[in-house]
């Protein structure tokens, strides 16, 4: 995939590599890496460092029977794991979150649709569908929001985001993303806190739609 100009910042890549990143954000990182060779290589570099630390770590003796137990298990066939594949605009990690099925969109009004893929205490991740030329209501963030473009493009105060581009919005950003004219803009978006809408009506709808 060429033309990606907005990549994953190092702190998010390291947190992903080390396993400390919550699931919603990990889904976005894994999806961007699936689309971006540069970030795939950067993730590889971080894992190389992690591997060097593992190699240098003080050893802790394991139980004496552990090796024998492991060797007994080697010839037992593993349970087959379902492997998800990219389908259309959705890379494998999105297809996995979708359970291999096409998205079931829920209308949010004015042609905007969403599907929540995963929602837990640590945050939520969803697909957003914004018709060409449409603005997403002006909102700010209490925490971190990652938005990855899968189709189309959007622009806001910070720049233009096309397919594969990742926008990282923290608590300071109040923005009004507008989808470009043309095909609908479809994004994968993850947050660790509810969005704050500035106008009253979306705020009322928030608990209903879990935006």
């Amino acid at each position, binding site marked *: 995939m060429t033309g990606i100009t907005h990549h994953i910042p190092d702190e998010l890549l390291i947190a992903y590599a080390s396993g400390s990143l919550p699931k919603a954000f990990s889904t976005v990182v894994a999806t961007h890496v699936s689309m971006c060779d540069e970030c795939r290589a950067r993730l590889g570099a971080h894992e190389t*460092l992690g591997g*060097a630390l593992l190699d240098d770590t003080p050893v802790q003796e394991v139980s004496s029977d552990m090796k024998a137990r492991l060797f007994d298990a080697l010839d037992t066939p593993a349970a087959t794991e379902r492997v998800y594949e990219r389908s259309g605009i959705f890379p494998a990690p999105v297809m996995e979150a979708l359970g291999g099925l096409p998205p079931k969109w829920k209308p949010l009004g004015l042609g905007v649709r969403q599907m929540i893929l995963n929602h837990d205490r640590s945050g939520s991740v969803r697909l957003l569908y914004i018709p060409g030329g449409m603005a997403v209501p002006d909102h700010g963030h209490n925490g971190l929001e990652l938005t990855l473009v899968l189709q189309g493009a959007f622009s806001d105060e910070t720049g233009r985001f096309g397919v594969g581009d990742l926008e990282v919005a923290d608590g300071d950003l109040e923005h009004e993303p507008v989808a470009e004219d043309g095909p609908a803009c479809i994004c994968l978006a993850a947050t660790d806190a509810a969005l704050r809408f500035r106008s009253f009506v979306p705020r009322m709808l928030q608990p209903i739609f879990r935006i």
Partner: protein
Amino acid sequence: MKVMFDVSEDVLLEDRLEAEAAPARVGDGAKRARENILVTGEPYAETTVWMLAVRDQRDKVAFGHLFDHFAPRLKGVICRSGLPPAQAEDIVQDVMLTVWRKAHMFDPGRAQVSAWIYQIARNRQIDVLRKERRPVPEELKPAETAEDDASQIVALEEETTALRAALNRLKPAQREMVERAYLGELTHAEIRAETGLPLGTIKSRIRLGLEKLRHELKGTDRT
């Protein structure tokens, strides 16, 4: 949480690392491979030799060597996160079994054995402890003529050796921060706020990875 370090010293460190990170030329790798053959009879480091024997011959003796090397290290790392030893051993067991079962996915031109196992360990630890599957990137489809490129493998080994030497020269407080970040003890916000992390070290290492990947993708069929 913020540990301040002398900026000028950091710059010097980065310069030194930068100099060491000069991209290894293919010729260097081939030369090193020949030297390795003279010493060990094999062109690669022993963990790579064992892993390739497991991958290509399903060699259990080699797998035993990998276990002896990595299991006590994995246990050390996993116990750091505060897990009781018995539970840590269950995860080590799970990781090593995954290494055996997924050996066909190991590509020594793209990852060192230690990096590959690190990544499996992080995945398994999350899968087991949080009882959820960690989202992972799509696998690259290997090229039709997937043969190990000896000089690339050795070049990657050299990069890692240089990286490890650089890690060992870090001041203890800096080293501690790197360990906490890469062993999953810091959040992304803490990593971002951490001025002591020698991120330049890592960035300078990325070049080889990128070059290798571009090389790889030329022969890869992806849509």
